[in-house]
């Protein structure tokens, strides 16, 4: 087949069952991954649309001759005729390679998403700080993710949707409204700690710690005392009483609350002797918002990996 410069060979998305081999000249291909400003060029020897030949897949590119071109077209019937006369293992190998390509493509898609999440959270957290609020322009986050990590717009959108499903943010018309900027930062830090320290982040709490904090928050919400500098104080007696009710009869002890004190999440009214009963401290106080964010982080974090590869 001969094409003159400027001729179109096919349109992206057209269903077809043939492939093209460039014999001479140059074709430019545009499509989802290659814009008109940055087309993929095909030169002599290149083959185009292997999967249209093998599986009748839609054309990958809109192809235009940049100069006079000669193209060889190979139809599916030709492939079938060759494979019919060849030993069956050759067909098996081709089928194996096709399967592997599909698996590889799916794995790459998932891997790219998993890999893109930390930088997206990092950038979102930074942009929220810059803007000084709970809202970040979606286009800005996507543009910076593309620059920093080559993240594609559709990958950003998928990640925004995952974060929305987890309750981290809400996608609005042109912006992202986050539940808590600190939660975005905590999520990033927790991922970073897991990856670089190869350990569970101190932000990830045991079930007991989470139950104690849930009790603390519940009592804080019920309390009529206003927060002082964001801090909430709950008496030890109330904590013990509510814990017994909420934690299936479990008694709150110095040891139970010790991990939260050591992590600086709860602070006792007096320095705690771990060998003495809990009543030694009259009350415990903690940063209400920080505890809420930590509880939210602990709800989200175990779901994150699964959500990303769904």
């Amino acid at each position, binding site marked *: 087949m001969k094409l003159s410069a400027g001729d179109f060979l096919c349109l992206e998305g057209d269903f077809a069952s043939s492939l093209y081999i460039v014999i001479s000249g140059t074709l430019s291909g545009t499509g989802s991954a290659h814009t008109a400003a940055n087309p993929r060029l095909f030169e002599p020897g290149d083959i185009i649309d*292997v999967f249209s030949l093998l599986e009748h897949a839609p054309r990958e590119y809109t192809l235009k001759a940049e100069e006079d071109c000669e193209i060889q077209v190979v139809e599916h019937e030709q492939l079938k005729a060759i494979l019919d006369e060849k030993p069956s*293992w*050759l067909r*098996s190998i081709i089928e194996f*390679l*096709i399967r*592997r390509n599909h698996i590889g493509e799916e794995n790459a898609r998932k891997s790219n998403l998993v890999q893109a999440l930390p930088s997206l959270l990092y950038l979102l957290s930074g942009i929220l700080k810059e803007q000084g609020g709970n809202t970040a322009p979606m286009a800005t986050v996507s543009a910076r993710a593309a*620059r920093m*990590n080559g993240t594609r717009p559709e990958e950003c959108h998928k990640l925004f949707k995952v974060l929305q499903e987890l309750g981290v943010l809400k996608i609005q018309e042109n912006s992202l409204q986050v539940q808590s900027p600190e939660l975005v930062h905590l999520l990033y830090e927790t991922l*970073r700690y897991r990856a670089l320290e190869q350990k569970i982040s101190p932000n990830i709490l045991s079930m007991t710690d989470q139950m104690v904090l849930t009790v603390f928050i519940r009592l804080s919400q019920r309390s009529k005392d206003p927060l002082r500098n964001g801090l909430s104080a709950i008496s030890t007696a109330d904590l013990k009483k509510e814990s017994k009710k909420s934690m299936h009869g479990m008694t709150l002890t110095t040891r139970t609350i010790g991990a939260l004190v050591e992590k600086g999440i709860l602070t006792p009214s007096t320095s705690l002797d771990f060998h003495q009963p809990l009543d030694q401290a009259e009350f415990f106080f903690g940063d209400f918002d920080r505890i809420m964010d930590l509880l939210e982080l602990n709800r989200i974090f175990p779901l994150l990996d699964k959500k990303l590869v769904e």
Partner: protein
Amino acid sequence: MNGNSRQQVIPPTHSSVKAGFVVYSHDDQERKIIILDKGELAAVDNSLTPRKVHFTMQPGDLVGVAALLEREPFRYDLEATRDSEITVVSEDCMESELKSIPLWLLAVIRELSARNRQRKEALRRSRAANSLVSLSEFCRHLKKGEPYPLESLVQEFCWQTKACAPEVKEDLKALSRRKFVEIAGMDPVVTVTQPELLELFVDYLESEAQEKPWPPLQLTLNQKKALVRLSITESDLSQDPPAWLAFFQKNNIALTAADWIKMQGLGWFINSKGDLFAPDSKKIEYFLLALRYEINLRGVL
């Protein structure tokens, strides 16, 4: 390109193997494809205690394609779990068969194989188009004035982007030469003194990559003078275009209507009410900073 050359084809070998027979050892030098015709094979790792079965093969399954076509190591031993029949396609056999098929089919097989390899390689590489832009984008979100240990910073950036550490260190030096970051100390620490400069640098590099002129470095002398004058003007001064032109005229800056349109296009003014315009102090600061650090941005220190 139809290349139906007929050469002598070396046929594959068919064998019957007893249960327990090792069909393919991971340290076999000879690469081959094993096709299971009858029975069952298992891929096992004998280096582990207890040994681990990675997968079992049923009739019609095959292994070794990646080893043969993509030179990937085969990591397991392949054993017959019961009496089986197999077809072995050796390298010579494969080669002779590939020589007998049309060139386009050979190209298709190569393309399929290459795509797999390229995809795997791509997963190991950074996806950022420009490593310096990528690093600048990362650094602009660091806390201003806070010293970060260089090694940890590089490690964190590499984790996020899959960039390679030596290249990142070179890029950090490039940022340091431009005075956008400071690297100091025996155990070096990195400090960002003015994150805004990194924002400018990212925009400048992006324009360069797109071969587009970067507006802050395209201003005429009078437009530059107007910019400096605006930077010391009250930001709540709001007036219509003729009044602004008169304002510049009064300050010995001769601007035309075309200049006014250009300045508006650059976003120096915001439409405050009706036909009234007020200076956008953020935008003006951005352009002013670009002018002040032009040499650093261009990297011609």
